[in-house]
């Protein structure tokens, strides 16, 4: 039966080549756009190097101090003091990695300017995040305690600063007029992970601003690692309790907010007006509406063409009906045909998106950022494809099934 449908479908596709071209064009390009979009979203939200334990990590990126009456507000990263004295006393987490927001510094090598982004971290940073050490090792707690001038650099900086030199551990790198001894080289991180990316990692005790400063807000963010995924809710709760006890720093402010969020929430919260909502729902709604609008036009177009196509086949339908085929069977046949068409378009779409994604990867638009079609993205693509086929097939099939036998035969 299905084999028959397939045969008919291909025969129909070959008959009106122009219509087939329009349908395939619409389906494949729509899918290409959706797959590229999905690849971006997937890359930005799912665990990636070096942040591999995202599913059991919570992120503390901002603290907000507010005075609702005078509508004054202060919002920004937190201080190291806050992490050591408040967040650091949490019992449930396994570990807390703390690092400063990266700051750009300049260095001049061979009459060329290099911009090196510096990040100060604690010791747990190297345990929570799984950096690939190309050579050397991270700095130890002892190094941090002694404020040793040691640094871990990224491969990109190694290439830019030292050129093609072999091993660079033990050599010195100078930026901001300070010399640091390189003790490790790690694989570079794309800037799309802004809380993890840096070119040069240093012990926080080397930080130029006084790390003993006792204010609450500062330049640091934290990653809280749970022992197990099921602990996340408890950590969120524990953190909430701790924050509730922290007095606002300045007497102008009366309320203080800070949240331990999952990775995606920590970004959506930036766009959320309400302090107690993470804004995740809004993001999902926006994505859904965009995808819907993107698919709406090609779908209507496909429906339109399909309707025309059916009318053309009215004689075939009339004959089959006259010989006793039920409306359901005919509708089913048409939907199957349409799904075959969309799957064909889907295959072309996947080839297109593969070409586009590798072009993006090769163009190094964002350094160290590689997009790929993985299983998740592909399954979304196929799902979109089937949905597309159904949506554009159902209405024409319904129209067809209602066609009167007499009319259908007469029209031919």
């Amino acid at each position: 039966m299905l084999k028959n449908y397939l045969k008919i479908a291909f025969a129909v596709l070959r008959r009106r080549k122009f219509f087939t071209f329009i349908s395939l064009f619409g389906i494949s390009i729509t899918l290409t756009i959706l797959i590229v979009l999905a690849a971006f979203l997937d890359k930005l939200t799912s665990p990636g190097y070096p942040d591999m334990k995202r599913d059991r990590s919570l992120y503390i990126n901002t603290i907000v101090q507010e005075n609702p009456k005078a509508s004054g507000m202060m919002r920004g990263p937190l201080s190291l003091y806050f992490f050591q004295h408040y967040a650091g006393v949490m019992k449930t987490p396994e570990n807390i990695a703390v690092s400063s927001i990266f700051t750009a510094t300049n260095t001049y090598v061979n009459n060329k300017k290099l911009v090196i982004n510096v990040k100060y971290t604690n010791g747990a940073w190297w345990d929570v995040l799984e950096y690939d050490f190309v050579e050397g090792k991270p700095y130890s707690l002892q190094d941090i305690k002694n404020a040793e001038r040691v640094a871990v650099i990224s491969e990109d900086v190694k290439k830019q600063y030292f050129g093609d030199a072999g091993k660079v551990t033990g050599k010195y790198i100078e930026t901001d007029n300070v010399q640091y001894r390189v003790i490790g080289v790690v694989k570079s991180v794309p800037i799309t992970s802004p809380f993890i990316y840096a070119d040069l990692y240093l012990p926080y005790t080397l930080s130029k601003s006084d790390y003993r400063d006792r204010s609450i807000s500062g330049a640091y963010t934290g990653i809280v690692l749970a022992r197990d995924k099921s602990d996340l809710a408890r950590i969120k709760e524990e953190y909430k309790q701790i924050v509730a006890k922290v007095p606002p720093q300045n007497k102008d402010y009366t309320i203080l907010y800070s949240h331990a969020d999952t990775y995606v929430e920590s970004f959506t919260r930036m766009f959320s007006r309400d302090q107690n909502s993470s804004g995740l729902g809004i993001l999902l709604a926006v994505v859904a509406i965009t995808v819907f609008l993107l698919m709406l036009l090609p779908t209507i177009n496909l429906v339109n063409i399909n309707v025309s196509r059916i009318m053309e086949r009215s004689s075939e339908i009339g004959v089959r009906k006259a010989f006793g085929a039920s409306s359901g069977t005919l509708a089913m046949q048409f939907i199957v045909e349409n799904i075959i068409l969309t799957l064909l378009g889907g295959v072309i779409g996947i080839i297109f998106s593969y070409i586009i994604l590798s072009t993006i990867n090769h163009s190094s638009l964002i350094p160290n950022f590689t997009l790929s079609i993985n299983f998740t993205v592909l399954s979304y693509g196929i799902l979109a494809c089937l949905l597309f086929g159904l949506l554009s097939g159902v209405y024409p099939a319904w129209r067809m099934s209602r066609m009167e036998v007499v009319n259908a035969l007469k029209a031919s």
Partner: protein
Amino acid sequence: MLVHLFKLIWNKKRQNFLLMLEMFVSFIVLFVVFTLSVFYYNNYRKQQGFEYEDVWAVNYGLPPGITSKDSINMLVESLRNMISSMPQVEQLSFTGNNIPYSANIFNTSIDYKGKGVISDIYTADTRYAEVLNLTMLSGNWGFKKGERKQRSAVVVNTTLKEVLFGQEEAIGKRVKVDNEELEVTGVVNDFKSKGDYQEPGNGLFRIPDSIDHQAQSMILLKISPDADAAFEAKLYKAVSNFSKNTSVEIEHLSKKREAKNRLTLIPMLILFTVASFLIINVALGLFGVLWYTINRRKPEIGLRRAVGASGTDISGQISGEALVLTTISVLAGCFFAVQFPLLNVFDLPSNVYFAAILLSVTFIYLLVIICSVYPARQAASIYPALALHEE
């Protein structure tokens, strides 16, 4: 004739509904794309208003632990003297970190006679206009020597001047910023400090009367064109020796401009690609459907030809039908589009919306005409005898 066409379409409203829906949605897509393009293009055409070539920005910091205003003042003056003594430096100005093309924005409400407007606030000393080569339209950047200095001076840009004072003279007026009374001493022309595609917007420049260096962290330098990386390294060394314990960064405004423009251009490019794909898709579909309909209506057309209609009549009818369909969709689209300027959504000037509506309407009519020309001509060339014979 027109009434007749409407009747024809009304009789086939079921078949035509999908086509109309498609054109309606295309209209909305076009409207969005054209609104953004018109908005950015209008801004792009506006004057740059300042020079960014050969202007560098130095992010510095005060050495920690110094709190007395006098000693900070002395330190900063020595830094100024040191930098301006370098032969490559033509002029320099101390300012806050919301320099042109930066991601930082400071804004607050400016009150004048009970009217409050939100405006960007820049802290900029008296050489700011010279470094960026701004045009002073009237007044001065700060008080002249010998004038009373009890009040702090501010300079407003043309947009803010018009919003606050209209046609009145601005100089000498007092505005309230954060409960502080400041006197306007000058009006400067608008300049696009947020990128080529953004509006200049309201701008107010505070000139610090007693040097308040806490609010400043940037130096803008006008340098001579022959300055090279070696000079930059020298400048960097000098500033970091001064700042000792804080990070220093030197940036070139021309590079910052490119980065800032890219933030607008890349999303627009993506939007254009997606929209043009949708439109091509729609055009192909429209073409296909019209072409198909004509093949199906051969007998009808043949009959009309037989009773004396000319080829032009037939093609006119086909194009006419398509255009009536378009008109219905466009009217529905316009109804929604007009709500944007009427309800003042998104704060864009209403002429942008009207220009966008006009462009979308023209575009969609052109599209339909192009798509219906070939099918209509095909219909016109139908031989009555042949068509009737087939029947």
